[in-house]
């Protein structure tokens, strides 16, 4: 293909948008509407997931070890039967816990740190008044943070099987609730994506059907004159992709402004809420949404125009 033909094709692709203003506007509006809903839904779902994930990151399992002089919780076990961990063994257990896939972080809390934190929370800064010894002596522990709360029960079973472990504190209700919410979000996401896709396909196929009647005569004239399939197809496909690009750029701009506004509004008006709920920044949302929307928009335009032109190439 000659360079002049290539430039001509590109020029025609742009010119076609203005030649069929109504069709172009209808196509852009259809793609924009679909991608606007997609963008809005994406921002909401991502924030839900982020909030749940943040909550999950705070869920920890506390692991306590046997120590000398403890009161046994099991009458059958005597002090002699209990395996007391050496500092080296404690460290090795910490490394074993950290190596597990469901674990995101492990923090060692000594009995003194535990008393300082607990005492301060309970009695304030003068918590040591009246205590000569640490009442939590021997209560060294690991706080284990999970990367996936649904795997908490598996982790707890494993931890309980370690002979040096005295008890494992965890909340199965919190873990189950968070896993349930996560699952619900996944189901709702899939459901809404299917509905959105179905609506998009319906709207776009209708727009394409209108496009077919507009283009039918033009394509047949080109073919009668001796235009190759490529020569006929290329400007239409380019036009479709440009329409898709514009159709994707508009809702991106709108969702960007709306999200920014909503974020500022919630942060300023509901300061208390923003202490508990951690929303994603505009950048975090649009780093993914922008390329996805543009690719989807251009893809829809490409597929729509290809199918429109193909039907009329056999002249």
């Amino acid at each position, binding site marked *: 293909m000659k360079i002049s*033909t290539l430039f001509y094709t590109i020029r025609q692709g742009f010119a076609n948008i203005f030649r069929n203003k109504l069709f172009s506007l209808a196509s852009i509006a259809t793609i924009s509407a679909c991608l606007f809903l997609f963008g809005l839904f994406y921002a909401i779902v991502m924030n839900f997931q982020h909030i749940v994930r943040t909550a999950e990151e705070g869920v920890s399992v506390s692991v306590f070890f046997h120590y000398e002089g403890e009161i046994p919780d099991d009458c059958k076990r005597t002090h002699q039967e209990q395996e007391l961990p050496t500092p080296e063994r404690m460290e090795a257990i910490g490394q074993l816990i950290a190596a597990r896939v469901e674990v995101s972080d492990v923090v060692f809390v000594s009995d003194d740190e535990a008393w300082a934190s607990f005492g301060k929370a309970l009695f304030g800064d003068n918590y040591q008044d009246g205590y000569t010894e640490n009442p939590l002596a021997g209560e060294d522990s690991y706080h284990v943070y999970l990367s996936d709360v649904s795997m908490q029960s598996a982790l707890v079973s494993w931890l309980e099987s370690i002979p040096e472990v005295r008890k494992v504190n965890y909340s199965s209700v919190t873990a189950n609730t968070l896993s349930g919410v996560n699952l619900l979000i996944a189901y709702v996401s899939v459901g809404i994506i299917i509905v959105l896709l179905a609506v998009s396909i319906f709207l776009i196929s209708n727009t394409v059907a209108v496009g077919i009647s507009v283009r039918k005569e033009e394509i047949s004239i*080109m*073919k009668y*004159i*001796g*235009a*190759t399939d490529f*020569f006929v197809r290329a400007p239409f496909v380019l036009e479709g992709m440009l329409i898709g690009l514009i159709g994707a750029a508009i809702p991106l701009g709108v969702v960007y402004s709306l999200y920014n506004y909503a974020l500022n509004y919630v942060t300023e008006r509901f300061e208390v809420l923003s202490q508990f709920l951690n929303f994603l920044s505009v950048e975090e949302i649009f780093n993914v949404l922008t390329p996805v929307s543009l690719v989807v928009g251009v893809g829809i335009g490409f597929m729509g125009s290809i199918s429109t032109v193909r039907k009329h190439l056999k*002249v």
Partner: protein
Amino acid sequence: MTKKELLRQKREEFIEKNGIICLDNVSKNYSVGAAALNNVSLSIKPGEFVFIVGDSGSGKSTMIKLLLRELTASSGSVYVMGHDLGKLSHRKIPQFRRNLGVVFQDFRLLKDRNVYENVAFAQRIVETPVSEIRRNVPSILATVGLAGKYKSKPRQLSGGEQQRVALARALVNKPSILLADEPTGNLDPNNSWEIMKLLEEINESGTTVLVVTHNSEIVNAMRKRVITLKKGVIVSDEEEGGYIDED
């Protein structure tokens, strides 16, 4: 001699022997109804001016569609410029059509492009250099008497002017054959004669012209070869013939 040159030589020999257009026992059946063409055979020599006449349903349009390779024959062979159209692959159809000029009753101009662009379009398809397009298009527009209207859109032109644009577009690539399907069907008598004069001039310059029409006045006045079709069969083929009135 290369394969391409050999093929061209074979085609030239075929044209010399059988004509630039040759139909050999051609029939065309649509799925419903009687055959549109029934065992039609004819030969048109290079440089001839031929009228194809007949009533509606006689098979005129089917013949044009076969010659354009828009349709393929149900049986028999259609040869145009030495190409056996039954064996022409879909990929080679554009190349074949570039040597044909076509004019339709409804003009079939690109409505959103001006006169210049409509004519230049045919040249862009064959990848003519831009500098040549700039030279050729004004020249052909002058030939059809539309030099001053190159910026006009089709809707701003009369029927006769639109048909001239269609003619200019058909001729700009210097085709060997010009097919005109009812070129005066939408025109008043004055414009019809103007178009026919142009077609005659084009023919005099060496182009084979085939005109499908049912304008008896023009056919009778021009005294050219007339092939008459009736119900898909050739009922007469006369040099310097006239329109056979059914009544």
